[in-house]
């Protein structure tokens, strides 16, 4: 395969400067409700399993046992895992895009540190106590607009108060009278925060969010969570940010080909996209869905037909706010000397540039403010115009 290094990312910094002055008035005038959905892929998503390169003999040789057969061709250089039907549909409708050979700036290959950093957006593990989405929401004054589809508030959303979460437990909510009684008790004791919570809970009871599935096990699967989240997000006064988690990408063994464990996790991600697209309805056009993972995986399969922790990987993006279907990359190549540490796909772009640009577009914030206040002024590229619609 001969992919020439593309220059789409080069010169971005200059473009940023050039456009900065023109962007501001446009940003201020936007009043649409735009949604951001982040899907956290825990365990290290293999970008080369999800979006393999076409015709690279080195790659095929090193992955004999776990190569994905019959991938869907996306362009001359890249293909898509054949089980990612929902994403492929987005692609065909010009609302699906991929950034390849990217990563957060973390190379030490520990899940725990990596996952901490993919959420905090920083460089030193465990140092930051807030997440990049939470900080940007605070900057955009989006209080009470976050929805986590998990029980503890993920670090990613921390930094802005009054986020809601949805992760149903077994059992039913009490009768409305009981909730009202507690609410009046909290009112009498000036327990305002508890009162706020009772308002959320009463709303949820009316929306019947607790039912529909027989066990909490099913209720908590992303298949249900994504449908319920879409129902929230599409409301004009609903949340503007939702955060999902997909676990299990850490396939050291039996990663398998098209029916393997890694595929299972990718399909779970794909189902979230499918449900969001279907249930968001009209709001899909004003939504941006993004993935984030702690690192990619080694090029070479290991003795157990799995892969080890790596570095460069891919970001999936879907939704009506995508500029056009395209694989964006400054491809580093897969020859040994082109690999990171001689073993991993290199990252030619700091993934945080994509996230900062996405939030600039969705939250109508100036890129430079995000760069400065969310990412401590680190060197990031403004890709908003290349990747997203304003």
């Amino acid at each position, binding site marked *: 395969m001969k992919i020439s290094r593309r220059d789409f990312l080069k010169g971005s910094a200059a473009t940023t400067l050039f456009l900065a002055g023109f962007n501001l008035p446009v940003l201020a005038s936007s009043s649409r409700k735009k949604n951001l959905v982040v899907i956290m892929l825990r365990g290290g998503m293999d970008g080369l399993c999800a979006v393999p390169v076409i015709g690279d003999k080195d790659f095929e040789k090193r992955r004999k046992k776990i190569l994905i057969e019959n991938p869907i061709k996306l362009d001359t250089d890249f293909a898509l895992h054949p089980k990612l039907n929902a994403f492929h549909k987005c692609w065909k409708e010009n609302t699906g895009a991929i950034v390849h050979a990217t990563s957060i700036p973390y190379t030490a290959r520990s899940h725990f540190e990596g996952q901490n950093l993919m959420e905090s957006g920083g460089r030193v593990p465990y140092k930051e106590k807030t997440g990049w989405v939470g900080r940007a929401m605070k900057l955009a004054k989006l209080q009470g607009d976050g929805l986590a589809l998990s029980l503890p508030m993920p670090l990613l959303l921390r930094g802005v108060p009054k986020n809601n979460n949805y992760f149903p437990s077994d059992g039913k909510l*009490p009768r409305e009278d009981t909730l009202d009684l507690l609410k009046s008790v909290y009112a009498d004791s000036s327990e305002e925060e508890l009162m706020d919570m009772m308002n959320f809970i009463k709303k949820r009871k009316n929306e019947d969010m607790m039912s529909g599935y027989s066990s909490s096990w099913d209720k908590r699967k992303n298949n249900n969570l994504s449908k319920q989240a879409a129902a929230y997000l599409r409301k004009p006064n609903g949340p503007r940010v939702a955060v999902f988690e997909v676990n299990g990408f850490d396939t050291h063994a039996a990663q398998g080909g098209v029916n393997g464990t890694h595929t299972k996790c990718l399909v779970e991600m794909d189902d979230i996209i499918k449900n969001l697209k279907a249930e968001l309805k009209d709001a899909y056009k004003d939504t941006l869905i993004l993935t984030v993972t702690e690192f990619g995986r080694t090029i070479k399969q290991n003795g157990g037909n799995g892969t080890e922790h790596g570095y460069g990987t891919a970001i999936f993006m879907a939704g009506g706010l995508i500029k056009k279907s395209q694989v964006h990359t400054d491809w580093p190549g897969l020859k040994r000397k082109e690999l990171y540490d001689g073993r991993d796909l290199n990252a030619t772009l700091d993934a945080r540039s994509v996230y900062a640009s996405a939030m600039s577009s969705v939250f109508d914030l100036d890129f430079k403010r995000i760069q400065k206040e969310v990412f401590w002024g680190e060197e990031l590229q403004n890709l908003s115009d290349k990747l997203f619609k304003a």
Partner: protein
Amino acid sequence: MKNFFRKVAFGLKPDEKAPSDPLVWAQKQVEIIPEFNWKGKHIYSEKEMRKYWITQRVEENTTLRKKYKNDPEGFRRAEEQLRNDTGQRYWPNNEICIRHAEGIRSDNPVLAKLWYFWTNHFTISDTQSLAEFSTGAYHRDFIRANMDKNFETMAIEATVAWPMIMHLDNKDNEGPKSQSAKEEWRRREKRPATLNENHARELMELHTISPDAGYNQKDVEELAKIMTGWRPKWTKNKDMGHDVTFFSDRHEPGKKYVLGKEYKKGRKSLKTVIKDLANHPSCREFIATKLCRYLITDYPTPEMIAPVIKAWEQSDGYLPEVHKAAIKVAFEYNDKYRKFQNPENWWLTTINMSGSTDKYPVSEYNMNKFVFGFKPSQEMRFPDWLLEDIGCHPYKQKQPNGYSDLEKDWLSTELVIRRLIYAKKAFHQYKVKDQIDDTIHERIIRTNFDNPDKILKIVSKAKTNEEKHMILFNLPEVLKA
């Protein structure tokens, strides 16, 4: 006054007689460390638990991966069987039963509540299957067992214990100028000896002096150098769960300087530096603040913290004296300040006040029925599920800084829904005769509140006994103690 029993313990059982001198009652409990209340047959030391951990990890990571490399389904099945063989799903439940029996079945609930405080202070977060095999035992062997010693002793033991060294990666902390750094295999395998600062940073930031002490990155690196070489011994090229010892060949040579003080190379320096950190003024201030936050209020005042610091100084950090001082301050501020209870402590209070401590935690008799190779029963697995579901599992913190102790972090829609649902579940821990006993709530309330009539009036608005439970245990008076 009766709030005090919820503040430093878990309330009183229905019809339990309140101790005549609550302060003395509470302080006496922290003087010695009694035997565990739990009499089940599976109480193993942290070291003994490692052999199950090894079987699980080594088998899973090597044997099974090789055997089922082309068979993902077979791999999943074999993994599942291995879990049953090593008791992976049983151990955390067993440990939680031991932990919770101390809180609501023993004669020393105050000691138990403080034990929970320290297990969160020295958090082992959820990595490397430690939650399933080791964390509970670590809490018993290195935290509780040292609650009648000086803080310095607890800090040293908690630091060099195998689970903590594993958890904070000190096993990978190797001196770049050490003897081992020069070995040929490192070049061959591209594994240079490098510092791993993780444990050193947390030892200062979370376990002892806190960032308030004003240390810098250089101090962290220097402390990391002192800690190089402290790791478990490997055999057969693997971690086989051996004790942590000092390997001088991996230790960074030369003098180190932490907070301006010089430390010599070698094994003795680690103890010396922890001793210095434990006796640093910022350490006692940090821990006194955390203790007051745990027992009294989210934002303790300097007046609350001062007596605890003083007790620390006078007793050289002797924990029973420090605890007594904190209890006394909690007693004095009992009427003025209420502390929002984390989900675990709230659940124990709910069960204890309900009087269903024979049903929860699961009895020794039922836990003893576990057979290796089989999945534990639903009943045996309730404690683990419960704590995960209420979002406060003491072995499954996501980060080394443990659970937050601030009300705002425990107020999310789902977490508040859990309190409603689990108050109901607590009601269903009752036998039928208690469920239909219409005097039960009055008895609970009269025993546990100074203003029973006001509480009774609110609770009586509920239609059923089940609803009364949900209301009572979600009143501000119970959520906050």
